[in-house]
């Protein structure tokens, strides 16, 4: 038996998404072609874009389809940076962002961008006061809607208002949050002045049951953003390249399906997750829940197992058929000590002893039972 508790890494493909993809794959033609076949493809593409826009609370023209979260984040941060005001030289970067953001900003820093780091609290929530204080005069600000490792949900509304008040363009990384918390680009953007406040928001398809290789960047009409890719005028000139019609259809289907069940799933998954957390702490009293106990993604259980070697825990759980994760980035298959856990004020040892279990659409009581049956022995053997 296999038990999949790593939905945050990639969630199984939804049947609706697969069907939409297969149906769209029958359509012949390049959506940019002017002939009838091209027009058929274009029609399906734009219908999908409208559906995606409706789910994300934005205008269809604001949806730029990408190959996933990483491309969306790169496009937003690099594009906003390249179009910055002449006197703005800094990027506002919270300490616990995803590597797609951290590494993009690091590359921009190498190219001359100043970085204004913003601390997070012990639950990995972005310090709003510090974030606000870092904004004035910055070229770009970025923030996670929900932390991909700990599941802690930030106050995206307040972050967006702060950026709007400071007149700084803000990108929100909603990759982990999408499908789990209500998201409306329009409401988050509010009445921000042109080209500042919330101007961009990233999502990835495979976190919500669309195929890997799909994703979107919402770009406000008024945003000033230079393109990353050149070679065609597709998607407002922001993302050159032949558009992926089946991918768009599948993303639209997955977003629609996940939004339809979001509230019920939040209740179901929160209950499963709490049983998992409580159960683990009963058999491993040393285990400590990381992140905000209440304002966290419904399917996320991120726990510290003091003194344990994360690699050994993952191995032993895998031998029991359980897929979990450290949640942090990998280099050649090696989990680095989590920069998120360290940003929360923990030691590097702690950062190597944290495990993330994430539940999703296909999760059941059997998954929780499997972990509860295996974790005590695994912890005992994985501890130094």
């Amino acid at each position, binding site marked *: 038996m296999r038990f999949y508790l790593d939905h945050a890494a990639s969630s199984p493909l939804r049947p609706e998404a697969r069907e939409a993809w297969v149906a769209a794959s029958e359509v012949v033609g390049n959506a940019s072609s002017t002939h009838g076949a091209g027009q058929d493809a274009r029609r399906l593409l734009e219908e999908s874009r409208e559906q995606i826009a409706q789910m994300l609370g934005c205008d269809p023209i604001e949806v730029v389809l990408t190959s996933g979260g990483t491309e969306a984040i790169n496009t937003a941060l690099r594009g906003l940076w390249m179009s910055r005001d002449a006197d703005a030289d800094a990027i506002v970067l919270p300490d616990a962002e995803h590597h797609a953001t951290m590494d993009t900003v690091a590359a921009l820093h190498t190219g001359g961008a100043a970085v204004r780091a913003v601390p997070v609290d012990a639950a990995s929530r972005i310090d709003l006061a510090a974030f606000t204080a870092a904004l004035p005069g910055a070229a770009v600000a970025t923030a996670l809607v929900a932390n991909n490792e700990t599941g802690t949900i930030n106050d995206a509304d307040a972050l967006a208002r702060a950026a709007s008040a400071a007149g700084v363009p803000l990108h929100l990384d909603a990759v982990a949050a999408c499908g789990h918390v209500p998201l409306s680009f329009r409401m988050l953007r509010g009445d921000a002045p042109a080209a500042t406040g919330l101007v961009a928001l990233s999502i990835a398809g495979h976190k919500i049951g669309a195929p890997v290789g799909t994703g979107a960047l919402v770009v406000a009409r008024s945003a000033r953003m230079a393109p990353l890719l050149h070679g065609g005028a597709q998607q407002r000139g922001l993302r050159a390249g032949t558009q992926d019609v089946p991918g768009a259809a599948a993303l639209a289907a997955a977003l629609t399906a996940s939004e339809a069940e979001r509230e019920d799933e939040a209740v179901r998954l929160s209950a499963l997750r709490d049983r998992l957390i409580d159960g683990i702490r009963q058999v491993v009293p040393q285990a400590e829940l990381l992140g905000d106990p209440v304002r966290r993604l419904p399917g996320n259980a991120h726990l510290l197992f003091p003194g344990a070697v994360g*690699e*050994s825990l993952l*191995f032993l759980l895998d*031998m029991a058929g359980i897929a979990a994760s450290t949640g942090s980035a990998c280099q*050649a298959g*090696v989990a*680095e000590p989590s920069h998120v856990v360290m940003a929360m004020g923990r030691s590097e040892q702690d950062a190597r002893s944290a495990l993330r279990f994430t539940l999703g659409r296909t999760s059941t009581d059997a998954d929780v039972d499997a972990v509860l049956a295996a974790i005590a022995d695994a912890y005992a053997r*994985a501890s130094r």
Partner: protein
Amino acid sequence: MRVLAAMSGGVDSAVAAARAVEAGHDVVGVHLALSRAGGTLRTGSRGCCTIEDALDARRTADLLGIPFYVWDFSERFRDDVIDDFISEYKAGRTPNPCLRCNEKIKFAALLERAIELGFDAVCTGHYATLVDGADGLELHRASDAAKDQSYVLGVLNAEQIAHTYFPLGSTPSKAIVRAEAAERGISVAQKPDSHDICFIPDGDTRGWLAEKVGAEQGEIVDRNGAVVGEHDGAHAFTVGQRRGLRLGVPAADGKPRFVLEVRPVTNTVVVGPKEALAIAEISGERHSWAGAAPAASDFACEVQIRAHADPVPAHAYLSDDGVRVVPEEPLNGVAPGQSAVIYVGTRVLGQFTIDRTVSAVPVDA
């Protein structure tokens, strides 16, 4: 038994893992990440910690149908192997990092973790054999003398030997291992052998050491203490070295001179005639036995002082101070810090780290 196969991405560990699977063991593959700053692609035959090497190991595990993991031992490796290498050189000694890696990482940190996780043995692609002797498992030389790696395994103790598995030890030649890899469809069948020191990617040990140890000008003296030249950093010299001395004062007899000794405290390099390199006796405190400690306090043996040196007949004397070995013929190119592995026939008895050497030629000779 449950076997944890250490897979470097090279052909030896790949075939070793394949044989372990074929022998019916329950095998899991693991690649040790020994450097956090490993490169992406393999260049030539150096290194073992690139992403490409990890991928090669993974693809072999896929072929064998076994689970595969990459474990991060970079911190332990840095502390126990790289830092040890640097501090040994700083102390004027010449360490063998492969031996240290076997002692501290593969058959210590990894083996301990393997046992914790329920494995019975760690399997590697080393060329050495295990023989069931009267007093338990014995470590012996490999069948292929040219590939024999028992020297770098000389640091293993009885407990470690009891939990190791060397499926390649009885293979008559490396060529057979490569042919077997090709036959099994292992992609790395023709991958070049690794050599040099894996954590010095460009192979420039002296340059690397100069950076880590720092290079400071000092004197080159003869055995009577007379200054005969200058150097740019004592660490760059190894006992037995002849080239690159650039001596200002010629030897009285006009013969070439060799490095006899490196004295890090005074940053001095001592040179002398080739004959003075001959070592009549070596001894050291830090030692280990690959099985039960010898019953006799002195006995006939063979001693080997480098991975590819010939063994020399000798006599060993044990005391509370450690081990002293007197070879029947003088040894050449002995430097403190090297390990001397003691053999009786093909069997590895144990080893000690050389602290002290006695020249076969008195100073005034």
